[in-house]
C-alpha cells in the first residue's frame, strides 16, 4: 500500500482528469508528486457533481466535452504508477463506476496499480457490495466524514475506511474559503476516538496558512479546487503553475516542522 504520509501535514492533491486533457493531467500529477504530494486523487468528471463548487464543475464540463471517461482515468493511473510510488486514489461519483461495472472497476484499478477509491455519493450504508469488491482486490475504500456526522456514523466511516479518512472541513461544496471553520479541528478530534488511520482534511484548503493550520491537528491536507483553478488559469503551463503553487503552499509548513 502506497498511502504513506512522509511528513506532517501530508499533501493530498486532487485533479479533475481530462482537464484540459488526460496527458496534461498526468503531467500535472507528476509535477504535484515532485512538489511533495503523497497521494494523488484522480477525479473522474461527472455531469452532475452535486458536491462540487463552480471551479470543479467547470473543470468537469471541460473534461467531459472531449469525452473523458473512467477508462481514460484508469489509463492515467497506470502510467503514473510506472513512474511513481505515490498513493493513487480514484475519486468519483457512483454512476460512472456503476455503468463501468463494480467488479470490472476494481479489477482494472488494481491492475493499474491504484491504491484505493473515494466515491462521493456512496455512504457506508449503501456500500456493502462495494466494500466486498474493493477488499477482494486489496483496494482501500476511503470514506468521507462530515462535521454533521453523529458519533455512530463516524464510527462506521472509520471502521470501513482504509488508507486514510477524509474529513470534510465544513458543511458545503468544494471550493476555496478565506478561513477554515472551527468544525474541522473538532471533527478530527472526534474521529481520532474511532481510528488510528491518518486523517486528511479537505474542502477549502488553499493558502500556506491554512495548510500549516491543518498540520497542527490533522495528518494531511487535501488540496483540490485551488489546484484545479491554477490549471484553469494557466493554459499551456499547467504543470509548472501547479508545481509553483504547491511549493509555496508546503514550503512554510513543512519547513516549520523541520522536515521539509
Amino acid at each position, binding site marked *: 500500500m502506497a498511502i504513506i504520509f512522509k511528513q506532517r501535514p501530508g499533501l493530498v492533491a486532487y485533479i479533475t482528469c481530462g482537464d484540459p486533457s488526460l496527458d496534461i493531467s498526468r503531467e500535472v500529477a507528476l509535477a504535484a508528486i515532485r512538489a511533495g504530494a503523497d497521494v494523488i486523487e484522480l477525479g473522474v468528471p*461527472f455531469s452532475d457533481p452535486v458536491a462540487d463548487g463552480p471551479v470543479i464543475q467547470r473543470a468537469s464540463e471541460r473534461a467531459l466535452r472531449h469525452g473523458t471517461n473512467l477508462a481514460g482515468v484508469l489509463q492515467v493511473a497506470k502510467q503514473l504508477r510506472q513512474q511513481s510510488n505515490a498513493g493513487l486514489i480514484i475519486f468519483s461519483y457512483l454512476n460512472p463506476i456503476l455503468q463501468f461495472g463494480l467488479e470490472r472497476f476494481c479489477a482494472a484499478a488494481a491492475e493499474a496499480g491504484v491504491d484505493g477509491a473515494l466515491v462521493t455519493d456512496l455512504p457506508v450504508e449503501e456500500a456493502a457490495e462495494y466494500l466486498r469488491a474493493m477488499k477482494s482486490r486489496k483496494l482501500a475504500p476511503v470514506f468521507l466524514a462530515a462535521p454533521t456526522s453523529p458519533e455512530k456514523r463516524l464510527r462506521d466511516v472509520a471502521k470501513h475506511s482504509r488508507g486514510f479518512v477524509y474529513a470534510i472541513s465544513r458543511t*458545503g461544496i468544494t471550493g476555496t474559503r478565506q478561513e477554515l471553520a472551527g468544525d474541522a479541528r473538532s471533527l478530527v478530534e472526534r474521529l481520532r476516538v474511532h481510528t488510528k488511520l491518518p486523517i486528511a482534511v479537505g474542502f477549502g484548503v488553499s493558502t500556506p496558512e491554512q495548510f500549516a493550520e491543518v498540520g497542527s491537528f490533522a495528518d494531511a491536507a487535501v488540496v483540490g479546487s485551488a489546484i484545479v483553478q491554477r490549471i484553469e488559469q494557466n493554459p499551456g503551463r499547467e504543470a509548472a503553475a501547479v508545481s509553483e503553487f504547491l511549493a509555496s503552499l508546503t514550503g512554510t509548513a513543512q519547513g516549520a516542522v523541520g522536515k521539509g
Partner: protein
Amino acid sequence: MEETTSNGQDSTASPPLGKPGKQPRVRAIPGRFGSYGGRYVPETLMAALQELEAAYAVARKDKAFRNEFHRLLADFAGRPTPLFLAERLTQELGGARIYLKREDLLHTGAHKINNCIGQALLARRMGKHRIIAETGAGQHGVATATVCALFGMECVVYMGTEDMRRQELNVFRMKLLGAEVRGVDSGSRTLKDAINEAMRDWVTNVRTTHYLLGSVLGAHPYPTMVRDFHRVIGQEARKQVLKAESRLPSAVIACVGGGSNAIGVFYEFIKDREVKLIGVEAGGRGHSLGEHAARFDGGGPGVLQGTYSYVLQDQGGQIALTHSVSAGLDYPAIGPEHAWLHDQGRAEYVSASDQEALDACLKLARMEGIIPALESAHAIAECIKRAPKMDKSDIVIVNVSGRGDKDIGILRENVAF
C-alpha cells in the same frame, strides 16, 4: 397517510451494490422499492436525511399532524377536487367513458401543493425555518413559495434559466409571494440543474434548512414521503368513481416527470389488479438521446441525485440532456417507485410527443373548456389514443395534474389559429 403497508417495499431483490450485509439497520420506513431507491448522497447530508426520516416516521403516525395536514388540504388548498365526466370528449372519441381528476382546480393550480403543505408542516416540527426548493415548470416553486408565505418561512427557489424563460409567469408569481428565485445556468439549465444547485445549497446550510423536494425523487425518505402526501389524489378518485359508477375504472392515466402526480393517483389502485395504470413520459421531438425524456425508452438503471432508478445516460454513466415542451417532464430520471412498478409489470409506461401534447391541450380546451398544463396534456394525449380502442363500458380516469395558464407563452408560440 394511512398506515397500510406498501406493496413490494419488502421485496428481496438486490440493490445495485448488494444488500447491506452485516449491518442490520432498523429503518423507520423502508427505503427501497424492490432494488430501486436508496440513499446516495454525500456524507454531509446523511444525518439530515436520517433526521428527516425519523421526524416523518413520527409525524405520519401523529393524529394532530394528520389532522392539520388534512385541514389545510381542505381549507387552504381546496380539496377534495372533483372527478369530472368529460362527456363531449367521451362522445368524440367513441370509446371508454372519460373522467378527469381535477387537480388543476387546486390552489396554486396543480397537485404540487399537497406535498408542499405536508413538508412545510414537517419542517416546522423540525424547527427549520429556511426552505429551499427546485422547480421545473414552476408549479412546485409556486406551491413552495405559497406555503412559505402561509407559515412565515424564508423561501429560496432554484430554477434553470431555460425554464425561467419558458415559465416566466410562474417566476413572477413566486416573487410576488415573497420567494427569492435563483437562476441556474449550468447544464441544460432545466430541472436537473436546479436540483443540483438546491442540493449544493442544502449541503452548505443543512443545519438550518429544509430541502422541500418537489417530486418522488431524491434520497430516501423523499420518494416515500412525497408519495404519501399525494396519495390523497387516488384515495379521492377511487371513492368518487365508485360512487359515480359503482365500479373501478379500467385504466388510470397520468403524466410522469419525476412521477409525483402519477404515483399519487396510482397508489390507491395498485392493489386493484384489474385497473391498468398508465404513465406517460415526454416523447419530446425525436427518438435519439437528448431529444426526449422517456426514461423507459432508452434509459437504464443508474444513480442520479440520491436515488437508484431508470436514468437517461450515456455508456460512461454521464447523465444525458433531455428535451420536452413541458418543463415539468423535462428530467432524465424517474422516481424509483415507478421503476419498480415498471419492472413488476404493474404499471405501463408510454410516451407522448411535444406535438401530441400540444394537440391534446387544444382539444381539451375546445371540447371541455379546460386548459390543462402541458405536462397533464401528455396524459390527455394518451387518453385520446387509447379511449377509442376501448369498449363503451370501460372507464378511464385521467389525472389533470395542473392547469395551463403558466403555458400560455409556449402555446402562443406553438398553436396556430
